[in-house]
């Protein structure tokens, strides 16, 4: 293990990868601070540009963007009462109140330091769990892969904020979109409408840029969100001794909650922040302080979101299964570099695997150093009007999508999915399950078809193999629980 970590550091500490880690951490904090653009749209926009850099560097940079956004998102939550990211929603509750009470500095400070501690501790979990899980997954056959993707999709849909059925519907639609193109088994082009460009399928790049880049721009322009920025001077960023005493266990509890929920498919980082806040409020001796500037209400959730973000790398690296839309983009990035994510990633591409893990240590240090001294800069950035920001976002999307294959068709596909992304949000459908379905579609279909061939057409093959049966029953149980909860709610 030590040898592997040292090898990882030898990859992560090259000047080039240090540079990409710094860029990722900086960009991540930047887009975490700016409402209207998130890590998914940023990664989608940068995905084509990563074709010009080694895959390890690309993943290191994207990982930096992901956990950097968790750090940056808290800044707007605390100063503007608008979460920069979905994972910073809960921070608004007590963080903004702390700012109004003249304690914006300690709120920002404990948020950054809690995130750093949580991120560092979580990495031990990532290091020690990923390889055993990957080794276990080498025993998987087609039925297990089908069952695993089924389980992942039911969990993602079950944790949807809007509606489980809508999320499942989006997942199915995403899977259908993923099936467009040449069928590997029979070499039949499916749903290509005679367009040769679609023979290789609808590219993940124009879809991601459309859904998350253009789609979000259209929604933000249509809804015209205005920011009311906290104006008092921010002083004393370093938390006091009293702040530390109040926060230390919240940081540790948040780390544990974030870690275990982050491993689960389905936006673990978001759910973990709510869970952490609920736990802190429940066990506090003075729960009446929550909602009025309780520092534990910032420390716990901010630690949880960073731990959740990093823990979500475990299923991605070990199994090749995304646990959320961000890791789905990371998998997409590996695929456009010709790398097959999955249990063999550890042995086939150790530079990527161990390099990314080592870079997370470095990234956490960079982020604490970036976030605390540069708070003044981030506050200034919040003042950029969105009317100036969105043309730049659109330009990055256009350049990015065109650079993949120099095809105008890709631009029109992106615009189409931009409209789809806009309509999804207006009609209260979530894009994340769609993206999960898109990425998992080939794994699920191959698993399904090969399993039926192996089992002579009998569905029972999925239930006669232990791991497969367990995962399918677990997935069905999740759906059953949601159905029961809905019926009970309606009964009231």
């Amino acid at each position, binding site marked *: 293990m030590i040898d592997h970590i040292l090898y990882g550091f030898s990859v992560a500490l090259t000047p080039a990868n240090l540079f990409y880690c710094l860029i990722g951490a900086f960009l991540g904090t930047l887009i975490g601070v700016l409402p209207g653009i998130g890590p998914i749209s940023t990664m989608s926009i940068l995905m084509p540009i990563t074709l*010009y850099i080694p895959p390890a560097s690309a993943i290191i940079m994207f990982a930096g963007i992901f956990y950097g956004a968790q750090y940056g998102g808290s800044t707007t939550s605390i100063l503007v009462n608008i979460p920069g990211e979905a994972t910073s929603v809960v921070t608004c509750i007590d963080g903004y109140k702390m700012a109004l009470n003249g304690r914006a500095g300690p709120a920002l400070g404990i948020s950054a330091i809690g995130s750093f501690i949580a991120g560092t501790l979580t990495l031990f979990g990532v290091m020690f769990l990923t390889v055993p899980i990957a080794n276990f997954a080498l025993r998987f056959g087609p039925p297990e892969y089908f069952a695993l993707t089924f389980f992942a999709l039911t969990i993602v849909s079950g944790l949807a904020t809007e509606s489980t059925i809508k999320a499942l*519907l989006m997942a199915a639609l995403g899977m259908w979109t993923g099936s467009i193109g040449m069928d590997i088994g029979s070499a039949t082009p*499916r749903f290509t409408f005679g367009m040769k460009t679609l023979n290789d399928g609808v590219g993940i790049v124009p879809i991601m840029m459309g859904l998350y880049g253009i789609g979000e721009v259209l929604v933000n322009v*249509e809804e015209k969100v205005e920011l009311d920025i906290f104006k008092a001077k921010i002083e004393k960023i370093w938390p006091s001794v009293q702040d530390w005493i109040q926060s230390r266990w919240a940081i540790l509890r948040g780390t544990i909650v974030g870690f275990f929920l982050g491993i689960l498919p389905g936006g673990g980082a978001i759910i973990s922040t709510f869970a952490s806040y609920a736990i802190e409020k429940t066990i506090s001796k003075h729960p009446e302080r929550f909602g009025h500037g309780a520092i534990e209400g910032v420390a716990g959730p901010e630690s949880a979101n960073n731990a959740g973000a990093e823990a979500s790398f475990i299923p991605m690296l070990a199994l090749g299964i995304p646990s959320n839309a961000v890791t789905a983009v990371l998998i997409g990035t590996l695929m456009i570099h010709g790398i097959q994510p999955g249990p063999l990633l550890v042995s086939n591409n150790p530079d990527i695997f161990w390099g990314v893990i080592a870079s997370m240590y470095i990234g956490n240090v960079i982020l604490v150093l970036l976030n605390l001294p540069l708070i003044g800069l981030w506050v200034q950035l919040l003042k950029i009007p969105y009317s*100036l920001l969105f*043309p730049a976002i659109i330009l990055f999307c256009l350049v990015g999508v065109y650079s993949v294959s*120099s095809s105008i068709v890709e631009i029109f596909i992106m*615009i189409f999915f931009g409209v789809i992304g806009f309509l999804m949000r207006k009609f209260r459908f979530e894009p994340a399950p769609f993206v999960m379905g898109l990425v998992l579609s080939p794994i699920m279909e191959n698993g399904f078809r090969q399993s039926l061939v192996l089992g002579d*057409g009998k569905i029972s093959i999925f239930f006669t193999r232990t791991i497969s049966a367990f995962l399918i029953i677990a997935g069905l149980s999740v759906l059953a629980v949601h159905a029961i909860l809905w019926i009970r709610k309606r009964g009231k």
Partner: protein
Amino acid sequence: MRADDRISCIVLLILSILICFGSTKYHIGSFNKPDAGTFPFVLGIVIASFSILILIKTKFEKGVAEEEQKLWSGTPGKTKVLYILLALVAYGLLLERIGYTITTFILFLFLLKGHKWKFVIGWALIASVGSYILFHIALHVDLVQGFLGI
């Protein structure tokens, strides 16, 4: 029943029927030997089932205030969205004809509408030339060169 759910589910139901119908052209095969049309056909049925479930579910839900059901924040917002989409489509049509830099310049003139014209022209120039230098020269990204070679 929410009007937005009704509209979206009817559209998705129609789409699912088209998916199922389209899948039959690729041979659905059998359980022993699934073919190219099997997976999309199953997905079509799944999408149809969930769409119908949502329609039934929303029928039993309490009525929602009209204000909460509003899809659009107002006519100016809708107009701006259509405007941006038209600008993007025009960009796609013109890009390979007149080249990256000029097309980007024109795009920014449209997207920055509403600001002072000197500011708009200045930023459009910076964005088009600056991005050309950044992407094409610094990052070696292939950008379309028009009749002026830029």
